[in-house]
């Protein structure tokens, strides 16, 4: 019990500080509007009045933590999950595209890495393009992808998944190339002394050696896939998904909605990374590679 507390204490302390700063910020940022309202009605506001009003506005500039918590709770538990107002429904829309994009991206990253490690010419030709693809801002690419797909009559999951894949293949590619190259000279000489073929060397040595690197990059990749999907949901027209929730919230000044969607996205990301982490731990422990 005391150990749990000792581990949790620093985290909780930081959390409390953040929440305290957030409340202060909410009061300060929302105060201008209250002051204007009060001036128009020629009232004087006491400090306590000021605080209660700034923390209970309908459309605050910065909603207070408890408002976001209520918004989040209402979005998750307060609606039928098939309702368009349910965060669960929107999260599912985002999640399905994220997982599809992650699968495409990770698959492409692994295949390219294998190609790069096995062929010098692929190493020289693919890597620069892979790097270049990541230097183009995703915000510029996303609308183009959506538009191109829409003109071909494809909307919904696939174009978003492509954007997610665009962001997630890169960490997997880099991690996997490094992983496949970890076997040292001695291990490779060993293989050579048994006259092992490239294939045997790959399946028995390179691939298993690369798994710790693969998992690390998969954690980055799945979070990147979520970001990609949300960005893919921002361009005009999208009505479903956490990205659409963010955008419509900002159209209508529904800051509580924005923040709720933001937190839902963060929770989703944390959950996804944690799941990959659990699979990683179990696999590496079984393989004797856990550190």
């Amino acid at each position, binding site marked *: 019990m005391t150990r749990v507390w000792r581990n949790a204490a620093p985290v909780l302390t930081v959390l409390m500080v953040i929440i305290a700063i957030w409340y202060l910020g909410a009061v300060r940022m929302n105060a201008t509007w209250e002051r204007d309202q009060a001036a128009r009605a020629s009232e004087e506001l006491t400090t306590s009045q000021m605080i209660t009003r700034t923390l209970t506005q309908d459309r605050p500039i910065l909603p207070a933590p408890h408002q976001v918590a209520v918004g989040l709770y209402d979005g998750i538990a307060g609606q039928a999950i098939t309702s368009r107002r349910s965060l669960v429904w929107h999260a599912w829309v985002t999640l399905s595209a994220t997982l599809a994009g992650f699968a495409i991206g990770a698959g492409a990253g692994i295949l390219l890495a294998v190609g790069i490690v096995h062929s010098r010419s692929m190493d020289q030709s693919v890597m620069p393009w892979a790097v270049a693809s990541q230097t183009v801002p995703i915000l510029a690419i996303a609308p183009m992808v959506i538009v191109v797909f829409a003109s071909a009559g494809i909307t919904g999951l696939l174009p978003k998944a492509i954007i997610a894949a665009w962001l997630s293949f890169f960490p997997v590619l880099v991690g996997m190339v490094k992983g496949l190259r970890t076997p040292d000279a001695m291990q490779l000489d060993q*293989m050579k*002394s*048994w006259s092992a073929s490239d294939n045997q060397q790959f399946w028995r040595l390179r691939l298993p050696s690369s798994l710790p690197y693969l998992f690390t990059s998969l954690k980055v990749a799945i979070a990147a896939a979520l970001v990609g999907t949300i960005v893919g949901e921002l361009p005009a027209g999208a009505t479903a998904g956490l990205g659409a929730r963010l955008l419509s919230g900002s159209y209508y000044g529904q800051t509580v909605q924005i923040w709720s969607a933001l937190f839902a996205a963060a929770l989703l990301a944390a959950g996804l990374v944690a799941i990959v982490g659990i699979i990683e731990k179990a696999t590496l422990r079984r393989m004797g590679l856990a550190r």
Partner: protein
Amino acid sequence: MDDTVIKAQGVGLTFQTADGPIHALKDVDLDIDRGEFVSFIGPSGCGKTTFLRSIAALETVTAGQISVNGMTPDQARKARAYGYVFQAPGLYPWRTIRGNISLPLEIMGFSREERAKRIAHVLELVELENFGGKYPWQLSGGMQQRASIARALAFDADILLMDEPFGALDEIVRDRLNEALLTLWAKTQKTIGFVTHSIPEAVYLSTKIVVMSPRPGRITRVIQSTLPRERPLEIRDTPEFIALAHEVREGLREGHSYD
């Protein structure tokens, strides 16, 4: 019985490096007969590893030639003429000891039953019968090195090449492993090439001691052991043993006075 299995004639190997050529080996002539236990000893950088690797076709000589069982080293490797034991055990952590020994056998395409049979046999040879199901990290360093020797023995090559296999182990473990290695050698009748830095180890194990010296790496003396093949650990206190050790030390010193 007394035929030559490894024959080096005028072997030279020059590495081209950024700082110019390095003559790792120069004019090396050596015959190793079937069933011999040959140790290579010499100061660091004299080309012991390079020579062993050349025999194993892990390096390509730039002058002269090496034949192994009458073939080029490359052909000999493909014919599974030798097992090679590296300085580190290099066991795969995701495979059990049995799985690790099975690795070269899988690569060489042995059947499942054949693999099981061979694994059991070599585990017995290195006295690890009860550890086949364990993972490498559950074994001590000495046991891991024994497992790696078992792996090199599994496909039953006639020649065993070992590059400082016990270099990282303490003396007590080393003594035990040396004894075990001699027993194994007597049982299997293999030809062994063994690199070491230790004079007593070289004298204790070998029928032939090859003393080398650096810059350029070459053989300065080949000492034929007069010790019997049967060697209890106590043999190291006999005058014969001490005389041989002295001769090796002389040879090493002689090599040094060249530069």
